[in-house]
């Protein structure tokens, strides 16, 4: 649910990167952070462990120009991917305007993708939402690695409803902005 502040003429939208642990959610946000002009972005906040793994979330505010005089501000969040941190994921999903599911293409993490997808559905339900209510895109990350699952198999299992999807190599920035753009467009269309 976008926050519209009439007094400051601002609209804030929350986009959450969801997916299994070590799938590349933080890498996505960091890449976005490194490639944007300083005046367009805020400070990247990352609550991570000493091993640089997301403990609670990453947060990056972006300014995306104006629509009808309202400043559009996107807040990018990531969730911790490990199964343990379900309460955090649930909390971070609150008020979500758009979701990017970052799937790990490695065959060894296929089950983790499926479990995370189920978990996302469950947590959305906790907030009274269905995935069809939320702007959504999938990103199949790590496509440059060996032993990745074929795209059609990932699609078959993770994306039977054929939401927009993108292949990506987040460490190189491949597909990062395409995915974000897809979801941001959906969010803005929903606002309009």
């Amino acid at each position, binding site marked *: 649910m976008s926050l519209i502040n009439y007094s400051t003429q601002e609209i804030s939208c929350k986009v959450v990167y969801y997916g*299994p*642990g070590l799938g590349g959610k933080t890498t996505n946000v960091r890449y976005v952070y490194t*490639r*944007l*002009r300083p005046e367009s972005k805020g400070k990247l906040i990352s609550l991570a462990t000493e091993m640089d*793994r997301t403990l609670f979330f990453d947060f990056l505010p*972006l300014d*995306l*120009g104006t629509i009808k005089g309202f400043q559009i501000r*996107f807040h990018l969040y990531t969730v911790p991917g*490990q*199964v*343990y941190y379900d309460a955090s994921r649930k909390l971070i999903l609150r008020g979500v305007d758009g979701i990017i599911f970052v799937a790990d293409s490695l*065959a*060894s*993490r*296929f*089950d*983790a993708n*499926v*479990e995370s997808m*189920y978990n996302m*559905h*469950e947590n959305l*339900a906790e907030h009274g939402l*269905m*995935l*069809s209510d939320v702007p959504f895109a999938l990103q199949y990350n790590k*496509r*440059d690695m060996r*032993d*990745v*699952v*074929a*795209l059609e198999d990932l699609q*078959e*299992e993770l994306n*039977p*409803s*054929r*939401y*927009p*999807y*993108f*292949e*990506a*190599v987040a460490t*190189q*920035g*491949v*597909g990062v*902005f*395409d995915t*974000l*753009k*897809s979801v941001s*467009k*959906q969010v*803005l*269309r929903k606002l309009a």
Partner: protein
Amino acid sequence: MIVRCARCQTAYRLGRASVPERGMRVRCPGCGHVFRVRPATAAGDGEPRPRRLVETRPSHSVDDLSLERDERRPPQLRQRPTTRRTPQTQTRTPTPSPQPMRRALGGQRTLDLSAPETQAGPEMRLETAPFQPGRASPVATPRPEPTPRRSDSPRSRDDLQLAPATPAPFERPADGTGPEQPVSPPATPSPFATPSPLATPSPFGSERPSGAPTAVATRRPKSAAASDLEQARERALRLARVLVSDILVYNQEDRDRALREGTLASTLGAEVNRAWELYKSKVDPEVLRKTSYFKDALNEILAAGQKVF
């Protein structure tokens, strides 16, 4: 038809009638590689697909995200239309729906194949492994031993789904006609209940009740109950594998070193205990009692096929 493994180049003869129109995934018994076979294709089926990548853009600016800039660009070829609010979407119910589990049981088969192009030509078994949520990733864990597995082996995850003709004592047949609960199974002992649980061999050894099951009256239709149980099993199996996979990927270096030094249980004991506690809290008690998914996952994924746990 002849199919050839892309990794080891071993050729196998596969009955065309065995391959559904949509194709299926098969695992090479020689090297564990999993590849897709389609009825229309012959040798070379195992060729890996070319990877397609989205082109890297030289740089991005915040304008890339705006609607105005975006609409001037041609649409990405790989981006599916956003018209997606179809009724099918509704099948993704908030709670885990059976739809993704549609092939939970039916598709698992083991085919006997001969290798016509090898001198020895031994009868080999090529396992079909339809891609299923909750099951092993298709190429994640090549079996250390390519020997054929018996269909009645209770340790095989595949076999747990196969509903063998003679069900294992702790299992219920997949058709739901069998008994639903074992006779007073002993309470599931916590495999990590002791202060140094991992130091004790086979912590999950007593997990499965050995008594023969008996029928238990239930008011629900058996087919519905069987479906529920199978779903619970699927989820438990997947959760076990994900928890253990998480331990592995978050502790890759420690695990590799511990595996070399033979100290896996002690090095990652805390992580394993933590995962086990979570697993216990989330898994249906009956499934927990009757299966050893967690231990199997530990040995298969974390211990790389060794029986450490």
